[in-house]
């Protein structure tokens, strides 16, 4: 069974630009979660999508947004990039039925210069 995949592995952007990160969940999983892992701040919950709808959102500004497609893959968009957006962005998925644990991808390393 293929795990959660994320692309790209690394992304370098300039302050003010937009970044798009992609995630494909494990086959059969309908929920996708996004986390930001910044140095010294640990993992911070960003977004939860399920069945194409945004279900919950963490304490991040509106320039962090995303969507979930009919095939359950997801995009995270970060507009007007700031230097402090530099972090590892992790995507996780979970099955349709509540299983409590989340399954993580390897992450996308975003560097803003």
């Amino acid at each position: 069974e293929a795990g959660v995949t994320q692309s790209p592995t690394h992304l370098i952007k300039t302050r003010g630009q937009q970044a798009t990160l992609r995630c494909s969940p494990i086959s059969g999983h309908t929920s996708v979660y996004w986390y930001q892992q910044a140095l010294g701040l640990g993992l911070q919950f960003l977004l939860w999508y399920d069945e194409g709808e945004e279900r919950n959102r963490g304490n991040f500004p509106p320039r962090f947004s995303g969507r979930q497609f009919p095939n359950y893959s997801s995009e995270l968009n970060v507009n007007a990039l700031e230097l402090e957006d530099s972090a590892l962005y992790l995507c996780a998925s979970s099955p349709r039925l509540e299983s409590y644990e989340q399954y993580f991808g390897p992450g996308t390393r975003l560097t803003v210069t």
Partner: protein
Amino acid sequence: AQSVAQPEDQVNVAEGNPLTVKCTYSVSGNPYLFWYVQYPNRGLQFLLKYITGDNLVKGSYGFEAEFNKSQTSFHLKKPSALVSDSALYFCAVRARPGNNRKLIWGLGTSLAVNP
């Protein structure tokens, strides 16, 4: 405010010795509790969870954790450490009731097992 504390940034233990990685939380009610491990250049891997029932839960790779409601703790333990256990360990909690699926994370504890 809801929070998770991992009081030790780093834990060092000799191979073959027991290990403990500590986690305490401040979340109202009886939360769901989790441990994840992050190996270098790899994503987070689920180790174990406490949802309900027996306070001692067993997980992957010989790890176990004990839920202590009075001390609001969920310490991770292993009877005999392996060098391959060296990694970054994260404790996470999810408040209940509610279905917001939001996990609150500790900052992580780096475990170094010395041969």
